[in-house]
């Protein structure tokens, strides 16, 4: 039998190798697995939703009245790639719907998937890791492709935010970002 640098008894070597393979498998599944996973979602555009109110006509009949004037796109920007190997495309919009609620909406959205990635609104001039870590966290990315809405917390002032950032919290990596410009529409 040729000599080996690793002469371990089988009852040490076999469990050690098994544990090593299991550890690598867990690492591969948690780090690389999400990379190939795609989640598609198509949510309704808040701009097309309508709010209704009730009015009473001169005859005393109560009828619903559609309110559409309040719905507007406040800011928008195009998604661009983040750090090397991380891509994003589509449009990010901050929309005030007819009820006055604020929504960040991604349209024709596609982003590289990964572990523990979040949607962040950031105030900084650059879509950096620092800006992402200190930004307004809208929650985990719910879909990698499609048209997706994220509610902004009540009382948020959307005018202070300059960027939308898709950010991996665990590994502090910017996956994609969009610079928000005030919308004229």
């Amino acid at each position, binding site marked *: *039998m*040729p000599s*080996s*640098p*690793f*002469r*371990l*008894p*089988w009852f*040490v*070597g*076999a469990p*050690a*190798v098994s544990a*090593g*393979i299991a550890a*690598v*498998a867990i690492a*591969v*599944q948690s780090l*690389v*697995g999400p*990379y*190939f*996973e*795609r989640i598609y979602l198509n949510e309704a555009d808040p701009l097309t939703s309508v709010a209704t109110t009730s009015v009473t006509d001169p005859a005393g009949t109560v009828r619903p009245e559609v309110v559409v004037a309040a719905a507007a796109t406040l800011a928008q920007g195009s998604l661009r790639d983040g750090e*090397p*190997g*991380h*891509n994003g495309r589509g449009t990010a919009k901050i929309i005030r719907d007819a009820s006055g609620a604020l929504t960040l909406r991604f349209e024709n959205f596609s982003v*590289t998937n990964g572990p523990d990635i979040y949607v962040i609104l950031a105030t900084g001039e650059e879509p950096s890791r620092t800006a992402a870590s200190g930004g307004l966290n809208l929650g985990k990315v719910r879909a990698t492709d499609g048209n997706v809405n994220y509610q902004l917390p009540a009382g948020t002032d959307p005018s202070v935010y300059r960027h939308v950032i898709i950010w991996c919290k665990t590994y502090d990596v910017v996956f994609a970002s969009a610079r928000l410009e005030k919308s004229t529409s």
Partner: protein
Amino acid sequence: MTTLGAQNPLAAAALRAPAPSWRKVSVSARILATAVGIAVAFTQSYERTQVFGAVIGVLVLISFVPQPAAVRRIIPAIAAGLCLFAGIALLSQRGGAPLATLGALAGLAELALSAHRRQSAWPSVAGLFGGAALMSVVVVAIALRVEG
């Protein structure tokens, strides 16, 4: 990592089946894994997954090319490790579980063949982990070269 000898019950289990049977298991598992990789390339819609499946399939296929004696034992084990860990990376996709299972089968067959050769199992074990390293290189290369 470990030495498979007559006193080792794992080696004894491996020796219960003849070497040609283990060789058939290793070869068959790798051929099927190549087919699964190519199938992933043709059935998935995400470009990076398509490329990943195709590259894994081609790399496993390369393990059948005649090799120098120095690497003849380790290359099939690397291919087995590549299938095993690529399958684990694709577990959420159709084709991932079969790929991982075929990789595990091929890996076990390569370890069993070590016992038949009365040789240390460590080159095969190193090959399995080498497969994980090779898969990582493939993933990084795809990330940098294929938009997705």
